[in-house]
């Protein structure tokens, strides 16, 4: 039976720098408050009332820039991070109160491989199976299959210290699947993978999902969220910004296309004129000399835009057209690009 994942008003404030690997590379910007004695106190707000509801058997994506709170969410759901407030459940099990039951149900692929470097690749899988009480004959067979599947069979009896990043990542995923968990967490699974390995990973994730397993993956890669996920939650600064299927989310961006113009100068009349163009839903100033046009057309609008610019005596230094994408959605909601 498939199992869902739920969080309710999760908040997490770090009062000490979190260990790099568990909290992810991209940490939110620390803000400093003053203690009563006036000494500055380290505080980072990582989650700000995040509520999620991942359906049983769903392939769900958490999308956001570095420091958005994705890894912290995964950390809370996998018993590794204690939330400051709020609750989380895996199926019917409260993550904080029934940690052991939760650990039985989940498999975790961390952002950075945390393999047991004292063991060989095969032993890592075998001991992991043993921790979960899998009988010896079953775990030997399963470890063999996974090593084959993840193209690690020829290095199976070596210590993983000498493995490439991609191989370590593959071994991490194999380990997480070793006990056949009901819910699989993948924290930035394809970061640092070459395109070929990424495709292998996607195939494996889809296959695992087809078996009725729930998968929650985090990514800051639009393409990945778009290609894999049934539903995507877009998070930024620990808050939920948008939620829906990738298709619905993309359609929710006014117009769909975003044309970013770099202009000099930027008189108010220019904005008004541009907004009057057919197909343009919104003209929004961004930086001092930058403005974004949300429109239902891309390149076809450019001649008209240039005409208006000439009339208003504005020089256009740069034009960038992006097609309907989750990237544009993020831009629309936060005013920032995901890659900023």
């Amino acid at each position: 039976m498939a199992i869902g994942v739920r969080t309710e008003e999760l908040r997490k404030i770090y009062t000490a720098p979190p260990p790099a690997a568990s909290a992810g590379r991209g940490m939110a910007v620390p803000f400093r408050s003053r203690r009563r004695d006036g000494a500055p106190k380290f505080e980072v707000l990582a989650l700000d009332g995040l509520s999620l509801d991942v359906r049983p058997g769903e392939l769900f994506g958490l999308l956001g820039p570095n420091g958005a709170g994705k890894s912290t969410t995964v950390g809370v759901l996998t018993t590794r991070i204690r939330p400051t407030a709020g609750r989380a459940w895996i199926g019917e099990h409260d993550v904080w109160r029934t940690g052991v039951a939760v650990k039985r149900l989940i498999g975790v692929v961390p952002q950075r491989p945390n393999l047991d470097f004292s063991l060989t690749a095969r032993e890592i899988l075998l001991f992991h199976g043993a921790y979960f009480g899998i009988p010896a004959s079953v775990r030997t067979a399963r470890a063999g299959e996974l090593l084959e599947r993840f193209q690690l069979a020829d290095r199976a009896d070596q210590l993983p210290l000498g493995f490439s990043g991609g191989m370590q990542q593959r071994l991490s995923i194999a380990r997480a699947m070793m006990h056949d968990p009901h819910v699989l967490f993948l924290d930035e699974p394809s970061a640092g993978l070459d395109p070929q390995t990424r495709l292998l990973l996607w195939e494996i994730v889809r296959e695992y999902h087809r078996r009725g397993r729930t998968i929650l993956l985090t990514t800051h890669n639009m393409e990945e969220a778009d290609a894999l996920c049934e539903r995507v939650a877009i998070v930024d600064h620990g808050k939920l910004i948008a939620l829906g299927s990738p298709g619905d989310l993309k359609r929710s961006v006014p117009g769909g296309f975003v044309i970013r113009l770099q202009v000099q100068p930027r008189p108010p009349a220019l904005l008004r004129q541009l907004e009057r163009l057919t197909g343009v839903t919104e003209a929004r100033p961004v930086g001092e000399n930058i403005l974004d046009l949300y429109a239902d057309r891309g390149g076809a609008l450019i001649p008209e835009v240039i005409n208006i610019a000439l009339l208003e005596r504005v020089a256009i230094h740069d034009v960038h057209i992006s097609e309907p994408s989750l990237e544009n959605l993020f831009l629309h909601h936060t005013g920032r690009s995901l890659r900023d």
Partner: protein
Amino acid sequence: MNGKTFLALLARDAHVARRNFLPLLLQTLLQPMLLVFVLGRVLTGSGMMPAAYKSMLLPGIIALSMLLAGIQAVAMPLIAEFQFTREIEDRLLAPIEIEWVAVEKVLSGMIQALLAGLVVLPAAWLLLGKGVALQFDHPFTFLGVTLLVALLSSAVGLTLGCSIGQTQIGLMFSLVLAPMIFFGCTYYPWSALASFPILKRAVLANPVVYASEGLRAALVPRLPHLPEVAIFAALAAFDLFFLLFGLHRFRRKSVT
């Protein structure tokens, strides 16, 4: 508690220890053997020390070896595994309360400390040559003391392993372990501190004192040593303290 998981964790540590058997053996034997040779052979052989010193020295050396073995078996891997690689994570995610992961470490450290004692005792005895008079007529005292010393070593290892960063390992040896060993009555009995009254009282706060004196009480009971009741009470109290404090540190360290 989940017995299968606990045994699997123990099997993992045993497997890693077996793989490193030779370096572990050398690490366990070399320092005690050097001490035994210099203090027990060179100094007594040249007449600077009486031959009876050999019997005094041996229990202290065993205490020292067991302590170092247990502390290193627990603290060193923990320090490494809690660093940025977070190698310990796969065990923290095993279906067992995280406290039991720490208890397993302590048990595995105890076993290694006992094995170290078992190896060093005959080796040092052989190296000391003639004139060592150990008595084994107090087997229960011996068993009790060695178990408590083994637990002490791995519980201290747990506390240190969860309190110290990788860059402070050198400091741990020079600032924590060295004073504990030299003021731990390993090379001399507690009664030898009679002419240093303040020091004599101060070292009673050092758990190593009870380990050395305890092994003396068990192996050479005719020589001066602290009363057995005091030894057992102090060792039990220190064991409990370091175990609970170590578990507390472990919990703090493993959940953000």
